[in-house]
């Protein structure tokens, strides 16, 4: 075990050096060895990252190495455990970007078009021989092309194919980590990092929605876990309520009671913060980036049109709200009355 940790530390150091000025002393042989170490690192990760005890040891060693390297090289970027899974790729990209890398080394990178040999992927298939750069670029482009085709099906509720695929990959990963029951906190940490790396709740929301709506039975346990995690991240849930399309939110409400409650709560909150502008005879929001009446109305309409049981629940709730507000039938006094009015218009 100690040997593995030592090797891990060394590889991280090699990776760090490859991004500094000291790389100008490297020759082709060094590069070959560096890639071999990177591959070794990937294999270590794949084998041990789901075992909590070993993972802890790896993380400790990694942190120690990170700290040491931060002292030596200014601007050093801390490596996480997840980064180790992509060691070879990081080495390759780092070398390409580093302006000090000897040009002959770069040339050798091109000449070989190195095959990033399997460091041991979770699902090693026999036809994975196309693991070289060309294959990689091809597949990314293939995904791009297939993504660009228009989505026709109603069931997808406006979710792009890219989001649907990303959702599935998300669930797949959760399931892989959860193969051992004591990995819950690890899975949560990963999700936290994913959220952080996504650069904005907008994209993240779609992926989560897609993951929750994935219809496959195998995904059920992973979906439950995801919901569980979401409950600890209200900000994400609220962002989803606001940024996702009405039809999508409706579908999510149908699938997940938790989401439904939060969604409906959000709608109620937005609606009650609207004020009636007597001169223009419309409901307006208090500040410009709050949710508009139209937005709320569209979402409520979407919920209604989804049929039972949501429809009946909405009707009941709205009735109660209307009554608490004074049970007005006149337009402009209670937002609930006006929303309910829309219901009748919609129905007739």
């Amino acid at each position, binding site marked *: 075990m100690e040997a593995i940790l030592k090797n891990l530390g060394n590889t991280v150091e090699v990776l760090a050096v490859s991004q500094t000025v000291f790389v100008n002393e490297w020759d082709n042989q060094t590069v070959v060895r560096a890639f071999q170490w990177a591959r070794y690192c990937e294999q270590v990760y794949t084998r041990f990252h789901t075992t909590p005890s070993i993972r802890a040891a790896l993380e400790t060693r990694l942190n120690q190495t990170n700290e040491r390297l931060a002292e030596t090289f200014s601007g050093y970027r801390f490596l996480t455990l997840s980064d180790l899974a992509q060691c070879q790729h990081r080495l390759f990209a780092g070398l390409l970007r580093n302006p000090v890398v000897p040009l002959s080394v770069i040339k050798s990178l091109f000449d070989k078009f190195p095959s990033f040999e399997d460091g041991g992927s979770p699902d090693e298939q026999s036809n994975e021989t*196309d693991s070289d750069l060309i294959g990689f670029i091809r597949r990314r482009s293939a995904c791009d092309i297939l993504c660009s085709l228009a989505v026709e099906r109603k069931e997808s509720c406006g979710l792009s194919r890219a989001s649907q695929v990303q959702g599935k990959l998300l669930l797949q990963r959760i399931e892989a980590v959860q193969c051992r029951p004591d990995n819950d906190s690890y899975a949560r940490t990963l999700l936290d*990092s994913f959220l952080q790396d996504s650069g904005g709740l907008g994209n993240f929301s779609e992926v989560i929605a897609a993951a929750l709506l994935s219809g496959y039975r195998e995904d059920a346990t992973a979906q439950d876990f995801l919901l569980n995690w979401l409950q600890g991240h209200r900000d994400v849930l609220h962002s989803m309520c606001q940024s996702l399309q009405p039809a999508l939110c409706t579908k999510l409400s149908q699938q997940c009671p938790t989401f439904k409650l939060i969604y409906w709560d959000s709608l109620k909150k937005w609606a009650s913060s609207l004020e009636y502008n007597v001169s223009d005879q419309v409901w307006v929001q208090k500040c410009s980036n709050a949710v508009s009446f139209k937005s709320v109305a569209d979402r409520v309409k979407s919920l209604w049109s989804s049929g039972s049981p949501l429809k009946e629940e909405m009707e009941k709730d709205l009735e109660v709200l209307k009554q608490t507000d004074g049970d007005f039938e006149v337009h402009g006094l209670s937002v609930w009355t006006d929303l309910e009015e829309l219901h009748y218009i919609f129905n007739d």
Partner: protein
Amino acid sequence: MEGKYIRNTLFKAMTAPSELQLSFWMDKAVKWGQATTPSAQQDMSKHLGSLRSFLQQLLHTLQLTSSATEAVKSLPFVGQFLGRLCWNPYVTADGESCSLLLQCVCCLYSAEPRNALEQRANDWIRNLLCHLTSAEEGGVIYALERFAGIAPHHCSSQALQKMVALLTEEVSVSCSPAVHSLDRCLCDSIHAVSVACVPLITCPEAAPLIGALLKRRISCGCSHLSEEFIEAVSTALLSKTLVLEDMAVIALWCHSLSSLEGAVLSLLESVLSDPGAVLQRLEEVVSSSFLPKASAQHCCIFLIVNDVFRNVLMAMEENVAVGALIQVFTSCFLRSHSAQKQQERLPLRAFFPHVPQNLLTPLLTEPSEVPRQAWLEHVSWIGRLLHSMSREADQVEEKGDSPRQRRALFEAWFLLAQRGHWVDVAAELLVSVDAEQSEPLLCLLTFYHHPTDRGHQSSQQIMAAREAWGRMRILFLAHTLPPERLSSMNKLLSSATSANLLLRLLLSFAIFCPAFTSTAVKVLQKVLTQAELKRRAEWLLASAWHRLSRGGALDAALQDRLRALQDSLLPEHISRCT
């Protein structure tokens, strides 16, 4: 002549692209942009093949330049051009184009830049490669790659598989107006999907989607697949760079006549290019083409395949390799047909619409299904039937032209060719029968080898065959081999315009006569002196070996005989080759 061809292609590849070509492709690259619109993709699908050739040409030219500066001087916008294409996923999704593109780009890299231009080029190339291989930080894809805990290229492979699975599901949804009256028929978008799939044909992950697109054509008549897609699939299947499931291949062949014909011609080519090597594995080669099985499931496929065979056979009548191929194909077909479930099976009648039933049944029977003692009667029956058909056709023709009669006769002959081992059986029987019994057998043989001879010519041929048969009997049964007889037999074979009948008879005698092996060998050596005849004899001997061993009739004695006969043909043949 081959050398000239090679030199010409090399020369063509090595010439630098012309101004016209460069501006044409540059315009295209600009117009295509990032391939996001259906019309751009449509145009690209039409030009993918020629783009590959152009990139090949460009690569050759760049490889000859000594530096990036020189390259840019002779091809001013090459950097821009390559850059644009690198940002075009439709081009980079195609394996060959992607590889050529990147090789071109790397040609512009200087290990020792001598000026600012080369330095800039280096930086640009490194940047480009970074962009092509890494997801942008701060985006969902980058985050997902990190989250997934696997190398990016595994991640992209899995993503592609799932993307394909999604689309395959969408494409496989059946188009039934009653059920989905509110949804727009998806058939309009099928065309767009097929266009998008053209660069993905050789991508193994995309195979399920390609299969689904092809199969949809069967279930939904309004599906419209792009021509370029069909052609690309056809080519890839033939070169074995794409593997599809059976149903998809059948769907392709039912949909596109040219792809079916291409498959048949490809099979013919593989057999004709090296007949000697292929004979041993003929059955394997034919089965692996999937044509027999497909023919058994779809009558129309069988009919079209046979049409191609008919034409080839008419053009190359005396080619024994083609005959053997057709025979083996028909056997494989019959086996596939009988392996089908009872309720799915069409009656064999449907597959041979122009052959009279009384001829069809005896010819479709396998020799193994008929007891050996009954062979003579069986084959004689066939021979007599063919003879009477032939006579009938003559009579009708004397009265006037009768295409129907001629057609029936031709079909009978073609069926005989498809079931050629009955001809072999007839030749085998002729070794041991007497004069009276030989009549229908000789008729059969003559009909097989000279189908177009009518009336007077036909009777002449039968007479000649009978005479030759008589002489062979004497020759092979004699204790001594009088040289005059041998040389006259030699002359007969050498002078006949189509000696195959005589050759077949001769070899039959050589194999099956009760005389000593040494006698048979001696006769063969003296009679077969021409190289062409020896070559055909070799093939016929190998064919006989194959037939006998399949029929379980190849005992030790026969094996020795056959081997000795084959050896007798060898030494001089070898010297001919070298």
